[in-house]
């Protein structure tokens, strides 16, 4: 007969009263994901959310910058035929177009690099190839942004 068994058990004997009751409440089990003071702080931050948001905000701005750029370079005033050193000198004489090109350079490079990071994460499966591809991507991106920025700021119409 086991009705007198005293080892604690969540389930009382089938025929008897439950082990836990109003006077003997079951211990509280914390929900598995509940954050408490003892939970270590997340080390990840909101990077992916910021990146997601950046893709959308920069996209909206790039519509104006890049489509405007294409309109100027390829459509207005004779299309590409007019492009040359003298044309660039004329445009970069104005701070307006310097700032325009600078913003376009930074936003398009960061937007494209972040997009490519997603593409690498999707297709490169071996950790080593991911690491190398991203290292290549980041160095190429940083160099290109620096080169483009330098060119805008140091442009010299009287170079020769």
């Amino acid at each position, binding site marked *: 007969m086991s009705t007198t068994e005293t080892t604690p058990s969540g389930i009382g004997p089938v025929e008897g009263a439950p082990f836990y009751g109003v006077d003997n409440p079951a211990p509280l089990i914390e929900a598995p994901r509940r954050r408490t003071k003892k939970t270590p702080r997340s080390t990840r931050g909101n990077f992916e959310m910021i990146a997601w948001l950046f893709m959308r905000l920069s*996209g909206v701005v790039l*519509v104006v910058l890049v489509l405007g750029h*294409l309109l100027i370079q*390829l459509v207005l005033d*004779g299309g*590409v035929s007019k492009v040359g050193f003298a044309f660039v000198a004329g445009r970069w004489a104005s701070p307006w177009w310097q700032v325009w090109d600078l913003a376009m350079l930074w936003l*398009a490079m960061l937007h494209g690099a972040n997009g*490519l990071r997603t593409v690498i994460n999707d297709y490169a499966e071996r950790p080593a190839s991911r690491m190398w591809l991203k290292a290549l991507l980041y160095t190429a991106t940083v160099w290109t942004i620096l080169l483009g920025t330098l060119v805008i700021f140091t442009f010299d119409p009287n170079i020769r």
Partner: protein
Amino acid sequence: MWSWVAHRVTGVLIFFFLFVHVLDTALVRVSPEDYDKVVATYKTPIVACLEYGLVAAILFHALNGLRVIAVDFWSKGPRYQKQMLWSVVGLWVVLMAGAIYPVLGHAARVVFGS
């Protein structure tokens, strides 16, 4: 699904163009002659066709990107995503038709004589 593939392919293409483009523009710091020599290739008929392709890629990526943004942020976006996709395609066709003459006109004059 196909619109996602196209968005990805055009995005990567534009990014690679941008690398080359910042490099060719950097030639203005080297010498006006070198810059003009490289830009002259932009004016040849074959490269004009590539430019038309670049315009096609950017216009699709930009219009479809705006649609993605609308789906994400506009409360009715997901419900109208299909209609928006067809608007993107329609607008793209119209703009591409409009770009034929400005982008390819000078190439046609070179090939067929003016």
